[in-house]
């Protein structure tokens, strides 16, 4: 898999997220621990809420609009809610955050 460097890990607050604009739509990059990151679609499957603005707890995020809780590993909505967000590969290397290069949307171009 090829990767793209999108910034420094310290630019994402611990237990927070930042938005990345891609040709496939907005992606949220979450930092759940000192050096643990997850990348998912930024759009809640319920009413389209921006997940990068949610509260991050464990490996989960709570959507800021109506409190849907989404698992960042599987992308699945938790509890009674049913829905799923796309997940993408992401990792930290030498203090930099890398996400999968497919997000450049080259295949689609």
């Amino acid at each position, binding site marked *: 898999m090829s990767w*793209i460097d*999108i*910034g420094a890990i310290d*630019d*994402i*607050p*611990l*237990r*927070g997220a*930042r*938005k*990345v*604009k*891609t*040709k496939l739509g*907005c992606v949220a*990059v979450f930092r759940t621990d000192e050096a643990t990151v997850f990348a998912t679609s930024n759009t809640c499957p319920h*009413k*389209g*809420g*921006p997940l990068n*603005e*949610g*509260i*991050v*707890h*464990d490996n989960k995020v*709570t959507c*800021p*609009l109506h*409190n849907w*809780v989404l698992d960042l590993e599987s992308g699945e909505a938790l509890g009674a809610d049913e829905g799923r967000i796309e997940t993408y590969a992401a990792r930290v290397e030498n203090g930099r*955050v890398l996400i999968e290069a497919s*997000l*450049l*949307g080259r295949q689609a171009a």
Partner: protein
Amino acid sequence: MIQALTHEDVRRLIKSQELQSQEAVWQELGWKTRNGCHVCRPAINYYLIADWPVEYQDDPQSRFVNERKHANIQKDGTFSVVPRMWGGITTANELRAIADAADKYNVPTVKVTGGQRIDLLGVKGEDLPAIWDDLTKAGMVSGHAYAKGLRTVKTCVGTDHCRFGTQDSTGLGIKLEKKLWGSWTPHKVKMAVSGCPRNCAEATCKDVGIVCVDSGFEIGVGGAAGMDVKEVQPLVKVATEDEAMEWVVAFVQLYRENAKYLDRPYKWIAKVGLEWVQETLGDEAERARLVAAFDLSQSIYQKDPWAERAKAEEAKKFAPLADLTLEAAE
């Protein structure tokens, strides 16, 4: 068997065990999750702010989006921006700055709120620091319309203009707002000051409502006009503005120190009883302690969050981390 702790238990233990960080609360009080959830984190963050204003560092990641971004998120992910208008008073210059901002940032909706100020709705998250910078330069600060904190102090025109006014209700409203703005509370706090019992500022359905009379000020507490509609209960009658200020600040601090997160004052008063509130605040020494504790907290928290975030270093956090749609041409 481990008994689940109530919010009130947690507040008591934070004080008695001197727990001064979220990690300490999770560890010492036996949290079952790694780092809490979206329900407990804002509550614990508030309790630590209220109980340890000097020792504890506010955690933006434990705040709901509105308090983290200092704007109200809307259904389409845009935000609303409400500058403070002290006691509902504004000027031609402020109105011009608001109108200019509405033009410059293509604000689709400009609305007058129920709290006597102006709401700019539909601002893009990335534009927030720039619009704040413009409003800040015109002398305005955040109205905290998004906060579990002091919202507005609604007023009528009082003795300045009204033929029925008994006191300077607008002046007292402005003084209260200048004293209390920027403070965090268990839930939102709305206030009003009416210049006479005709009550044009609708003070009797506010968390704290003052009705001016010839002999002084009638202070009521525990009103609300939300999910429940509640009329204020009489707290005290005082003769002077200074006494009115002291009682209101002491009441707010007592509420800050004791209430469960997300209990409006009427819910909290229903639990502890109005009599206890009156007795506690009736003790002059306790009243002075509460005012001093509030002032200490304000020395740290009464800062305009918009001015701080309009600076370049903070403003860049409102932009995307990266934009992969702008691929360099090769």
